[in-house]
């Protein structure tokens, strides 16, 4: 089963918040997310550049650069960067605030109060479910919490596979 979100973060796309936009293709086998491809057409540091992440728990997560100027030959020979998975044995610093990615557009008092039960916490509001998972996979945030209905398989299958590839976990709160 392939789950597609053709343009995750449409709200942000419409508002011009382009780095939040991702194209998500996830492969699910017997109900489990197993492999994902996440393309980010507008890099947060340089909107003229893009990047693509792909991977699985078995093979790890890889990052490749993409620009529209690249020739077919450039694309076939570009470097594939392996992202070092999370070091589960490393203890965070005493004063480390847990960085939580949370929704930019669907954010309620209730969500805020649930997330604030974590102490000390730093809430990083950002657009796009795929984009939030990506930030989690590359280690910019420690977790992504969405204590509200609204996420669908097409939002999650691809980026969840990357989170698993980094050694992370995905779960529901129930």
């Amino acid at each position, binding site marked *: 089963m392939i789950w597609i979100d053709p343009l995750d973060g449409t*709200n942000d796309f419409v508002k011009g918040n382009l780095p939040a936009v991702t194209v998500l293709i996830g492969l699910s086998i017997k109900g489990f997310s197993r492999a994902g491809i996440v393309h980010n057409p507008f890099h947060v540091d340089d909107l003229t550049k893009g990047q693509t992440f792909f991977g699985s728990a078995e093979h790890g997560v890889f990052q490749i650069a993409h620009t529209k100027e690249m020739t077919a030959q450039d*694309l076939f020979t570009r470097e594939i960067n392996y992202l070092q998975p999370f070091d589960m044995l490393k203890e965070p610093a005493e004063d480390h605030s847990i960085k939580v990615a949370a929704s930019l557009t669907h954010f309620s008092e209730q969500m805020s109060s649930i997330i604030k039960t974590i102490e000390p916490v730093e809430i990083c509001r950002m657009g796009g479910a795929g984009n939030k998972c990506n930030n989690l996979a590359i280690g910019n945030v420690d977790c992504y919490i969405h204590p509200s209905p609204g996420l669908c398989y097409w939002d999650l299958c691809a980026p969840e596979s990357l989170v698993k590839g980094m050694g992370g976990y995905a779960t529901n709160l129930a």
Partner: protein
Amino acid sequence: MESAFEDINLAEFMSVCIYLSEECGKIIRHVSESGDLKTIAKGVENPVTIADIRVQKTLEENLKILYPTLNVQGEESKESMEGIESIVKPDSITASVKKFVTSEFLNKKHHERRDFIEN
């Protein structure tokens, strides 16, 4: 009756999806630069643009041709894609596209990660 099973090579599948997603990134960039998003509201804080529709059509059509035994489910409805054409033609997915990521590469990475996976 033909069997509904076929072996799919994961490295090839990933290569194809990387190519398709990056081509679709160009569609999104193009729509963004044109300034004409043709936004329709599907619900509160739930818009859809022409880029969403074109990208889904492109991904769905190509994946269904290449992998007819896989179910493909996207966010946008069939009705919304009526009259829309795929931007990527199946014959542009060449042998070179399909071997960007190779099985040897994935197998090697899997082998190197064995300790990590087991722990």
